[in-house]
């Protein structure tokens, strides 16, 4: 087919009822003149258009590169200028467009988006194209980015929450390279990343042979197709390297106390496995986790702040380590003298939530609040474009289409059954406590250094 025709094919049309109106719109599939497939979600009143892209992308095979290289490479691409233009020049030109952008790495993926007023979409796409395909990649900028990233990581790791995360990664990732991706460890190896390695990674990582692209906004599919081609035109049409295989986090039941005598406070973090995002039921898990630990009316906030008065805030969130591995995380900073009561209250609150689920008086409030959050997200082109990409990658292309209907259709008893069946028992959770009081928790495994964590999980003895 001729490349002069901007939108070449309409694959499917999914209908979606927009919030706040009876209008029905369709998520449509298109192909750009250069052959990139994308989903398009029209948002008539948005005044802006967002293009979101995800590359499934690992490190070049056999390269023995540090897993954190994509984080450093992307930082260099974004800060060091592109296409021969100075960093401040290209940044100022983009800022002139009243536009937003982000490019970041996850294990095995690179994600990015631009969100632009419709009249500036081509200008923004050209700048994005320069950054993606012709970053300046200068040695002096690489050295600076490595220094800054390492300094930031060290500063983070020195805080109570940073220490809890470090310990958690040691336990759940053990020797898997994804630990190094998140922790930027060992720093010596990060410091040794060379410019040639970044260039090799860049050449391989942004191939366009298997991209997932979604567009949302008011600019129209035809204009979006041109912008996609402009943004991706300088990239090779190659396959990206395969991501590493990962069997999932190793979440071991138990309480590990990291004794830090100089800390001014204590911190509690628990981890437990949930079914991955790819299994669906997103509305159920979102609603349930919000009832458990989001906002002033949540169970955890009420129990640990309003009643026990032991924390400023205490909550629960779901972390997708990859799209095949999801973890429930509860936590907060708490008063050291109340640590035993905090754990008792946490157990009682979580057990009650898990066994009894959402109460009749909580359910309509939680359902309405969740619907409202989603409706709000559906008014923002960048959120919609990213949700479209995610639902495609999670093998649930119709998730967005039915989002509000699914929330409206939630049934309390069915939700509670899922909670009971999938949320792990309290005893199966890994509990990490960072505290200045080594004796705060009776029966816990107490360590003074993160690298001693193995002592808490001795290998089972042979009979």
């Amino acid at each position, binding site marked *: 087919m001729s490349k002069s025709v901007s939108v070449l094919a309409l694959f499917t049309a999914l209908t979606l009822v927009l919030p*706040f109106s009876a209008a029905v719109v369709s998520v449509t599939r298109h192909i750009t003149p250069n052959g990139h497939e994308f989903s398009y979600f029209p948002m008539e009143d948005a*005044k*802006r258009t967002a293009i979101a892209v995800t590359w499934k992308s690992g490190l070049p095979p056999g390269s023995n590169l540090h897993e954190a290289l994509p984080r450093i490479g992307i930082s260099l691409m974004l800060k060091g200028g592109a296409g021969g233009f*100075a*960093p*401040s*020049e290209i*940044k*100022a030109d983009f*800022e*002139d467009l*009243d536009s937003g952008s982000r490019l970041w790495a996850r294990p095995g993926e690179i994600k990015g988006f631009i969100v632009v*007023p419709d009249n500036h979409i081509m200008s923004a796409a050209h700048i994005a194209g320069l950054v993606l395909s012709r970053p300046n990649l200068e040695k*002096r900028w690489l050295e*600076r980015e490595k*220094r*800054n990233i390492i*300094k930031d990581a*060290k*500063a983070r790791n*020195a*805080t*109570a929450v940073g220490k809890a995360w470090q310990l958690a990664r040691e336990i759940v990732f053990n020797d898997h390279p994804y630990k190094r991706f998140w922790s930027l460890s060992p720093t010596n190896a990060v410091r040794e990343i060379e410019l040639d390695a970044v260039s090799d990674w860049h050449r391989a990582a942004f191939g366009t042979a298997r991209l997932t692209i979604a567009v949302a906004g008011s600019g129209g599919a035809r204009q979006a197709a041109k912008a996609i081609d402009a943004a991706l035109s300088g990239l090779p049409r190659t396959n990206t390297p395969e991501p590493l295989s990962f069997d999932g986090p190793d979440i071991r039941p138990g309480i590990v106390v990291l004794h830090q005598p*100089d800390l*001014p*406070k204590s911190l509690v973090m628990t981890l437990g496995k949930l079914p991955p995002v790819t299994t669906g039921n997103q509305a159920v898990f979102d609603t349930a986790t919000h009832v458990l630990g989001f*906002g*002033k*009316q949540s169970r955890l906030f009420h129990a640990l*702040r*309003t009643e026990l*008065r*032991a*924390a*400023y*805030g205490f909550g629960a969130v779901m972390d997708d380590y990859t799209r095949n591995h999801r973890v429930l995380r509860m936590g907060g*900073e*708490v*008063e050291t003298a109340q640590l035993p009561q905090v754990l008792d209250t946490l157990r009682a609150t979580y057990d009650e939530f898990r066994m009894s689920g959402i109460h009749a*008086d*909580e359910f*309509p*409030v939680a359902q*309405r*609040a969740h619907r*409202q959050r989603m*409706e709000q997200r559906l008014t923002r082109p960048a959120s919609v474009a990213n949700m479209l990409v995610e639902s495609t990658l999670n093998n649930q292309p119709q998730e967005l289409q039915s989002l509000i209907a699914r929330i409206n259709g939630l049934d309390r008893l069915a939700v509670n059954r899922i909670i009971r069946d999938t949320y792990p028992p309290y005893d199966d959770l890994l509990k990490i406590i960072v505290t200045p009081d080594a004796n705060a928790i009776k029966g816990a495994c107490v360590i003074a250094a993160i690298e001693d964590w193995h002592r808490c999980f001795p290998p089972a003895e042979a009979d």
Partner: protein
Amino acid sequence: MTKVAIMLQNIVKCTLLFFVSASVASTPAHADLIKIETGTGLKAVYLLADEKSENIRVSAVILAGEADSNGPEGLAHYLEHLMFWHADGVHGSGKHNRGGNATAGGLITNYYNEGRRSELDDLFVFAQRLLTKPDLDREFMLAEKRIVAREYDLSVSEKPGRRAWFEMNRELYGPNPVGKSVYGTPQTIASMTLEQVEAFRSKHYVAENMVLLASGNLTETEVRHQVQKNFASLDKRDPNRQSWRHEPLTDGLSKRVEIADDRVKNDSYLYSSLSHWPGSGDPQQDYYTADFVKKLLRSSLPGSLEQPLRVDDFVVARYEVNLIRNLRNAVQFFFGARPDDGVDLAQVSQKLQESLVLLAQEGIPERSLERIRKRFAQEAERRNDDVDYALERAIAFLTAGLEPNDSADHLRRIARVSKADIDQLLTSVTNRQRTVEVNLVNKAL
């Protein structure tokens, strides 16, 4: 007249003004700020109508903060915690379809509640309860001090940079209470009494110090009805005059402090100055002038601090910069940075001063001024019907002691910012009267 003459000399600006005016006239302003006369004692009531929104938000701003307290530091923040719980208990502690929060600043205290139309009565009762004595158990109120201490832990204790900022402000403002820390310290938090809290509340939490901002799918009639129903029978009290805003700068100061702390992981340089800045005589317009300079200094444009400090030369790895006008005749400049590798804190100080002096001598580049104006105007145009944008601006104005403006005035003032006013401000920043520099270093070093 002078400003008008300068503006007329600038064809580009005039064209923009025409464009802006024309577009304002042709665009329905969904989220525009409307002042409502209610005949009650409230300082002011505003409506931000948004027919597309299913949610209604009632923000209640108390025009008093830590700067108005005579008690231990952090008292205004402690009171904010107590008043939120008191106001939120409209119908006891049961589940409700409302959400809300509160923030205590040094100068104002802002509460909000939001929910669906079915909660409309409770949203206004929430605001009304902020003007009543907290109906909370004494033990609960005392225990809330522990929560305030936890918030200090979360926000301050592991962040030496934030502690240094508070120390710096205390020195910079001298006896003026603007320099007090809203978080207090563990010692002041522990020392606070409920009697001190009540004395502060009864003096400042009065109708004359409260500004209500209602936003969402509401009409003027509905807002007026709710306000008259809930706020009609309040005793008349004296408003808070915030007289500290008009106090002159105290004597000159040039102080350099080294704070050594083992929680510092990366050495940092902090600098703040107070300069006499008479402005243009129009404080609202001065707000825009300062905002333009802030945008310039933070940008990547010629005339910014980014080019000389972070991009052309690797002097700082990152920096933040701010211009604040807490006092009517003065402007505070703040700069905080982490030096790049191999650069010492004295070099950062020297390069910063050189850059500021050069900028003041040369003035803002015309092209940079127009690019900032264009960016500002296009964002304002795009967010013309965005309630959050209007609300953020209104709160910022109240914090600065100014009356909030509507979107037409917003656009007019963006178009009116002049090179002369900006250059005068840049000169003021370099002619500082009081300066405090902090070298924040690791104790071990």
